[in-house]
């Protein structure tokens, strides 16, 4: 009976054969403002006493390409490799998290052994604070301000502001190319209204050329006051 149990345990052990140990499974990556791709390497070593095969890798975005040590998928005990991800920056600005699921040996289709994450930070050159201005229906009709601040080391001018005609927008230059205030006033606070405000700049980075802000007149709800469902 003991030997039968031993065989059963050996069979069970084979299912979980081998593990890859990564130097880091979550990485932070700062991208240059004009970067078109960001490459991140995840180094690993087979720390088990069995060979381990990578059977599949699946990034959660078509913008992420995965390459495994030049196509090598089987790793002997003690052997090391690298999973290299290349993120196509495209229109991304700010921070974005991307993930790659990696299946080893007999991992079930819905349970990959490894999940790697990379947080990519693409600098924002034109910062809006706040991005949304809100008025409650019936509240006192008064102007509110969006601060437009250019990232340190950059010189970017606001060249135009467009808004729905139910709101007035006045651009105040505090320091040319560095700091602006956009003063917004709704013409009425009697009914719900929304304006998408487009702020055009002369940024050389085309994806950061146009910024978007919102001005909204609405009924205040518990959610709006920061009360969540639970």
């Amino acid at each position: 009976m003991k030997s039968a149990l031993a065989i059963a345990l050996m069979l069970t052990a084979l299912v979980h054969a081998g593990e890859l140990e990564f130097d880091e499974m979550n990485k932070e990556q700062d991208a240059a403002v004009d970067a078109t791709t960001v490459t991140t390497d995840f180094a690993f070593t087979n720390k088990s006493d069995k060979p381990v095969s990578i059977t599949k890798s699946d990034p959660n975005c078509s913008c992420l390409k995965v390459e495994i040590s030049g196509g090598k998928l089987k790793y002997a005990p003690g052997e090391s490799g690298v999973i290299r991800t290349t993120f196509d920056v495209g229109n991304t600005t700010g921070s974005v998290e991307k993930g790659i699921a990696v299946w080893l040996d007999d991992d079930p289709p819905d349970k990959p052994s490894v999940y790697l994450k990379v947080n990519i930070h693409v600098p924002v050159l034109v910062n809006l604070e706040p991005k949304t201005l809100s008025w409650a229906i019936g509240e006192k009709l008064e102007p509110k301000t969006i601060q437009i601040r250019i990232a340190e080391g950059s010189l970017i001018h606001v060249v135009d502001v467009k808004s729905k005609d139910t709101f007035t927008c006045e651009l105040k230059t505090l320091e040319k190319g560095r700091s602006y205030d956009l003063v917004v006033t709704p013409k009425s606070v009697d009914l719900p209204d929304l304006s998408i405000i487009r702020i055009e700049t002369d940024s050389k980075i085309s994806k950061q050329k146009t910024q978007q802000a919102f001005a909204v007149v609405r009924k205040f709800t518990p959610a709006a006051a920061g009360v969540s469902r639970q």
Partner: protein
Amino acid sequence: MNSLGQLAAIGFISALAAGGTFWLKGPPVRTLRCDPATLKPDEICLQQISPDEPVLWVDARHRKDWEKNGVPGSALWNLDADEDMQAFEADIAMRIMETPQVIVYCGDENCGLSRQVADRIRSLQLGAEVSVLHGGWRALSEAGMVKDSNPGS
């Protein structure tokens, strides 16, 4: 009895027990379960949503998946690099004015994308109540709420 015989006996007894369970209890339940008591703070179960409540569904999957089998009337907002985030923001902002209850779903129950998208929608500060659907697209598909779905499958 040698080792292989013993192993065969164990296998036979296990198969017999499994067969008996199947016969008495029926096949295993493969539909997704959602227990409100174990949800993360920003999650919601499909059964918690009243059919009378208007919901703005936001699909966080790739565009081709949304076009193929998204919830009819849903909005798209994914984090694919070739998409126009400002267009997503503008579309959602207009629709939140009409439907301030927003529920984001992505491909499966472990997909972290819907949480990232929900955070972005919340950061617009448009007064929307934003939740993430537990079980994602699979829960909607089982409920027959997506295009070309087969309820209960």
